[in-house]
């Protein structure tokens, strides 16, 4: 198989919020920058974000970055690195104002300043009361953000390669990163993008789960590529779930439905939340509701032929209330659950929403790995930002609206660090290692020539169902251990997937098979890390982690206040300590997380 080579100062994989922000930094500094993306930039998944982006601008009431920092550390259940968190919240205002200058149409107050609204977990005065911190552009925040940044990139001559699929990281013997291999979907041609700086901004991998709010494109390609190139993956056991996704589809049903009086019921029609949270009932926090739902399903009180979902009932509400106050829900229920929610309840399950872990980075956006007795040594030429990266600011649980902020701050920071390293002349186009490129060619060849192999769709489905059942929102010791074995068996099948269509032009079967190679790495990292972590922390909740005074909420700081690092080779785990020391302020001391 042939390939050609193209040279750039920097190659960025991904044109969502993180990739576009990094690209602006590089192109503005005059670097020859290529951005590769599977879909047109403004169709990246960032478009789905509606809630807003957090910044302590204090436009509507008093706010301070230190309060934002406290909320983020607490939200992370103390697994977030406090230096990176301080860096993020202190840079929030500047990044949001920059975005405004790029043309982002934020909602405004009468005095012309950016309007801010409250969002779960964001508080004033170190957890005292809710604060208005989220900046939004109507209900199209993510979309508006991508448009503004795409336009800016066009202005500063970023070169886009749209409908290109990056396949593998090119890393030489010394461990330096020299670019990526990629396939042009239009021709099937393979090209090596030879670069002095390579930035991954490929988004999350929510599609490892059967029920996911993520679009189909979120297949964790960057994370998979990094793992294949020997980079460990950090804290992959931590996934945020939303309690109410439409069963079998994943589409999110907003919390507002329960706010308006919607009730969760089991197969017997019982309002089961009365047993789990006698006061708050259906309005209890996300994790409490999700856990109750899974317990009902596990104990045989789920609905449907497989007893694998519960019901969200709004039939007792006035139809006008539903249609007026909850616009969109009626249509979503019809389209994706096939029910008219005015007359029948909606089948729902806890649904995967956000990936907290990823490629380990520091706050400068450099990818860092253990080397000798040091745990965080930068990999020369390699940077990552956004949902594919783990800075780690979200720790064990992300706060809403902090993710868009992460894209802006760390996209910029990764770009800025790369510019610095390029300008100081520390990076050159080192010779390309043939062996690394051969690995990509062999992977594509294997797929093209595989006979009697596994079906891609069925294998992916088996992985997704296994992950949902064995490493979902509520985790059990035996189920996790069994799940590891099942995922390893599925991994062996992924190595033998087969495609019938061998054509070169827009061969979606091939694209999906190559994506599955990445998903399975994420699935392995997740379930192996989750199986090993015998405590509960943030979004990782285990049935066998006891809530006793030594381990409040099941959190075991003595043994588990550390980041997991999963290596593909040998399927092994390592750990590194959490950075509890912020950049300038005092450590936010450990305490039980309660809201």
């Amino acid at each position: 198989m042939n390939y050609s080579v193209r040279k750039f100062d920097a190659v960025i994989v991904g044109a969502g919020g993180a990739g576009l922000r990094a690209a602006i930094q590089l192109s503005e500094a005059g670097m020859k920058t290529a951005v590769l993306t599977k879909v047109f930039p403004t169709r990246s998944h960032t478009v789905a974000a509606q809630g807003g982006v957090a910044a302590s601008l204090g436009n509507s009431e008093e706010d301070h970055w230190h309060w934002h920092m406290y909320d983020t550390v607490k939200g992370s259940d103390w697994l977030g690195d406090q230096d990176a968190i301080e860096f993020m919240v202190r840079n929030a205002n500047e990044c949001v104002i920059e975005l405004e200058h790029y043309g982002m149409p934020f909602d405004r107050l009468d005095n012309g300043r950016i309007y801010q609204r409250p969002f779960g977990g964001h508080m004033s005065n170190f957890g005292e009361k809710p604060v208005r911190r989220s900046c939004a552009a109507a209900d199209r925040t993510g979309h508006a953000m991508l448009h503004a940044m795409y336009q800016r990139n066009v202005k500063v001559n970023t070169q886009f390669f749209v409908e290109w699929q990056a396949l593998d990281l090119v890393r030489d013997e010394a461990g330096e990163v020299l670019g990526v291999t990629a396939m042009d979907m239009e021709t099937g041609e393979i090209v090596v993008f030879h670069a002095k700086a390579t930035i991954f901004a490929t988004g999350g991998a929510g599609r490892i789960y059967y029920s996911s709010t993520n679009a189909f494109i979120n297949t964790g390609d960057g994370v998979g590529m990094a793992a294949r190139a020997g980079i460990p993956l950090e804290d992959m056991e931590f996934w945020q779930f939303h309690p109410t996704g439409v069963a079998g589809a994943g589409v999110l049903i907003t919390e507002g439905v329960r706010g308006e009086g919607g009730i969760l019921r089991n197969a017997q029609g019982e309002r089961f939340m009365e047993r789990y949270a006698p006061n708050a009932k259906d309005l209890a926090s996300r994790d409490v509701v999700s856990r109750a739902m899974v317990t009902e399903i596990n104990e045989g009180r789920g609905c449907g032929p497989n007893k694998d979902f519960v019901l969200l009932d709004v039939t007792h509400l006035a139809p006008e209330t539903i249609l007026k106050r909850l616009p969109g829900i009626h249509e979503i229920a019809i389209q994706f659950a096939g029910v008219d929610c005015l007359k029948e309840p909606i089948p729902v399950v806890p649904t995967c929403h956000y990936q907290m872990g990823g490629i380990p980075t520091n706050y400068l956006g450099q990818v860092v790995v253990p080397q000798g007795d040091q745990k965080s040594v930068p990999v020369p030429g390699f940077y990552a930002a956004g949902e594919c990266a783990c800075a780690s600011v979200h720790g064990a649980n992300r706060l809403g609206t902090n993710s868009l902020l992460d894209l802006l701050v760390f996209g910029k920071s990764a770009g800025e660090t790369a510019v610095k390293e390029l300008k100081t002349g520390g990076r050159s186009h080192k010779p390309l290692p043939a062996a690394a490129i051969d690995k990509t060619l062999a992977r594509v060849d294997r797929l093209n020539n595989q006979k009697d192999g596994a079906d891609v769709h069925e294998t992916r489905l088996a992985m997704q169902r296994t992950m949902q059942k064995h490493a979902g929102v509520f985790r059990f010791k035996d189920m996790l251990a069994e799940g590891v074995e099942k995922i390893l068996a599925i991994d062996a099948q992924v190595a033998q997937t087969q495609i019938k269509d061998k054509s070169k032009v827009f061969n979606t079967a091939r694209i999906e098979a190559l994506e599955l190679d990445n998903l399975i790495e994420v699935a392995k990292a997740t379930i192996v890390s989750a199986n090993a972590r015998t405590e509960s922390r943030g979004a990782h909740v285990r049935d066998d982690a006891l809530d006793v005074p030594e381990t409040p909420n099941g959190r075991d700081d003595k043994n588990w206040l550390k980041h997991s690092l999963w290596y593909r080779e040998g399927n092994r785990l390592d750990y590194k300590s959490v950075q509890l020391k912020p950049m300038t302020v005092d450590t936010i001391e450990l305490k039980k997380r309660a809201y």
Partner: protein
Amino acid sequence: MNTDRNARIGKLKWHCRRALLELDLVFARFWAREEADFDVQSEAVLTRLLELEDHDLWDLVSNKATTDDAESAAMIKRLQCI
């Protein structure tokens, strides 16, 4: 000829990979039902619709908005068909 059609449909199908899960699901259902006898005329109409921004396309599919273009409206009906 057939290879040409395959390539065109492949490209269209890829353009149906969207940023919103809602649309991904609608298109997955649509192709499962329509791929075998999808004609050239339909290709042109769908290509036009796929140029829309995701939120605008979803507004049409979920009846929050309408279009004056008769061909597009007919295609939206086919997309909605459950």
